[in-house]
């Protein structure tokens, strides 16, 4: 069996190499059903605003990373328009965000400068306000690249991508309280558990309290994700440094219990939120495969390859997934071909694609409303990995979904409006809209 590193190298040396790599950092978790559900105020109806954590572009507007707020309520006069933006005064590779458990604050991280910005979204969701900056994250934790922000009661789990010692992929999980104070850190396993070798790499976090488990996935370190894509693909040694594992943790003890071999950089993790379900799904970017993590009849957790996304030989590169609230469907964005695909997950052991549509020249994140009727898409991966020229579209596109067809609702052109590279999205709502 080929190792993932070998496989990724072969892929990247092929005809699609450059485009493949632009999608490897499929860093995206961005919808109502991918929020940590263990917080208050999940929006079941119409969202009022979409907040977009946006990478600054030198020479475009103020050039800083910023939180852009778009009016998403069709009944509003400013529907589909940018109604607010907050620049953070620097450019540090704005990437992902997550709400605190009370949904009053939105934490947003930078993969390059490892800063964490905390925005007050609860006081007035139309006008988020920067209220705290955590600038000593690497010094406090030894980790670099705060990626996933996953709410737990009174605190935030922060999944990271790299470390201060060598900027490689060995990393861990940090815990901060909601006041911004450091609480604890937990390294990803680098030894063997149950005969499976850990690689220590990190990416996403997803918790299932009813099982007392947490899953983590694995990507790559700062040396790779901040490197110019042209140089990276020519560096054979660097191309071997991508994650090939998922880890199952005892959530209460915060101790790793099981390592799964999941080749090809498994990225976003989504638990089915359907009561009684005992499985999570992920997509491996390099191999274009869907993986299911599920308890078997004996209660033992197993990870297995349950299907492909598009034609893996054409390198579609799945970069984000979004599960429906009932766990019966899954949106998948593939960066290479700009396609948005829908899979029927009625049988999670055998996902079946039922729909596809090209939604952009480069697409990364996909976010759906809790009721599944609206779908939002953004365009950017990383500053140095996005496509060039005319393919470098930067946008938020909103669609209506009737179960059969994605129909355009509105679009915000982030380049024309001099905002930057549109990346991660989160929704908010005014009280009356809930």
């Amino acid at each position, binding site marked *: 069996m080929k190792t993932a590193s070998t496989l990724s190298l072969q892929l990247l040396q092929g005809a699609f190499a450059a485009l493949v790599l632009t999608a490897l950092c499929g860093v995206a978790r961005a919808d109502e059903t991918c929020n940590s*559900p*263990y*917080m*208050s*105020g*999940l929006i*079941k109806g119409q969202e009022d605003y979409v907040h977009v954590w946006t990478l600054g572009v030198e020479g475009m507007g103020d050039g800083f990373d910023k939180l852009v707020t778009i009016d998403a309520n069709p009944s509003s006069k400013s529907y589909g328009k940018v109604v607010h933006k907050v620049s953070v005064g620097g450019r540090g590779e704005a990437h992902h965000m997550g709400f*605190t*458990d*009370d*949904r*009053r604050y939105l934490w947003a991280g930078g993969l390059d400068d490892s800063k964490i910005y905390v925005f*007050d979204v*609860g*006081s*007035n*969701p139309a006008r988020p306000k920067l209220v705290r900056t955590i600038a000593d994250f690497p010094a406090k934790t030894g980790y670099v690249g705060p990626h996933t922000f996953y709410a*737990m*009661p*009174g*605190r935030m789990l922060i999944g990271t991508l790299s470390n201060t010692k060598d900027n490689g992929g060995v990393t861990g999980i940090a*815990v901060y*309280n*909601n*006041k911004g*104070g450091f*609480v*604890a850190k937990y390294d990803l396993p680098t030894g063997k558990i149950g005969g499976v070798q850990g690689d220590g790499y990190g990416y996403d976090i997803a918790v299932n*309290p*009813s*099982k*007392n*488990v947490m899953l983590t996935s694995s990507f790559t370190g700062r040396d790779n994700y901040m490197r110019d894509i042209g140089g990276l693909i020519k560096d054979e040694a660097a191309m071997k440094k991508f994650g090939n594992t998922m880890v199952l943790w*005892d959530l*209460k*003890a*915060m*101790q790793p219990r099981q390592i799964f071999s999941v080749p090809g950089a498994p990225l976003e993790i989504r638990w089915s*939120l*359907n*009561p*009684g*379900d*005992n499985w999570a799904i992920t997509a491996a970017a390099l191999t274009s495969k869907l993986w299911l993590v599920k308890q078997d009849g004996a209660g033992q957790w197993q990870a297995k390859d349950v299907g492909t996304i598009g034609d893996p030989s054409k390198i579609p590169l799945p970069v984000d997934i979004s599960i429906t*609230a*009932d766990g019966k469907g899954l949106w998948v964005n593939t960066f290479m071909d700009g396609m948005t695909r829908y899979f029927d997950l009625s049988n999670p052991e055998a996902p079946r694609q039922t729909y596809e549509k090209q939604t952009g020249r480069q697409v990364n994140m996909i976010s759906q409303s809790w009721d599944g009727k609206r779908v939002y898409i953004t365009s950017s991966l990383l500053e140095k990995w996005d496509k060039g020229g005319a393919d470098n579209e930067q946008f938020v596109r909103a669609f209506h979904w009737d179960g059969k067809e994605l129909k355009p609702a509105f679009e915000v052109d982030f380049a024309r409006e001099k905002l930057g590279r549109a990346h991660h999205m989160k929704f908010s*709502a*005014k*009280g*009356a*809209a*809930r």
Partner: protein
Amino acid sequence: MCGTQCASALLAAIMLLPGSAWPAPDPGPGLAPHMDFVPTPAGTYQLQRIQQCPDAVLLNPSAATRRLSSYTRGKVTLLTFFYTYCTDPWGCPFAYQTMKTLRDRIAADTSSRSRVRFVSVSFDPSHDTPDTLRAYNQSLGTAPGFEWQFFTARSMAELSPLLDGFGQDVRVEADAAGRPTRAINHMLKLFLIDGAGVVREIYSLAFVHPEVMLNDIQTLLMESDRAAMQLR
């Protein structure tokens, strides 16, 4: 009887709180607590030191002022905020039933019952007066040898910093016309506090598993025992 006027006053007070414009909590599908695992054994894990417990001056059922810090130190404490007329089945009544179950279990353990206390603090000083608390407390029944304290505040202004310090959100629900109702929406949270006054675990709805909570309490008691041994 506290009517609309009272509710309006309460709304005005609570609107001063951070995040008061935030919508109601909604547990959502699958988020009600469900336990499908064997709890990690007590004493085999460490609970995180999440934050220092904030302090406030409160009123007990005898209308005497008391510092909360006198009731969040020296024992393992389980603290929650509530209001006496809450009817949300996944809110205060659920928390109360859980705490009552835990109280009965702990009270039956002679080695633990004097080392654990519960504290319940009202969200609504305007309605939950000391007299109201006393009547509420009496209706609950007692467990001999077990300490369960009830508090209210002199005003919302005095309670507000405490809620903020714990990170406890609260909001008055509005009716269809936008008028305040008597319902106070809040995210259910129970705070487990060690003998040094440090919050070591927070249980929101999906994490309210009594067996796990008992193990967490035992874990803190064992930690305290180990610390005492080291001092000898």
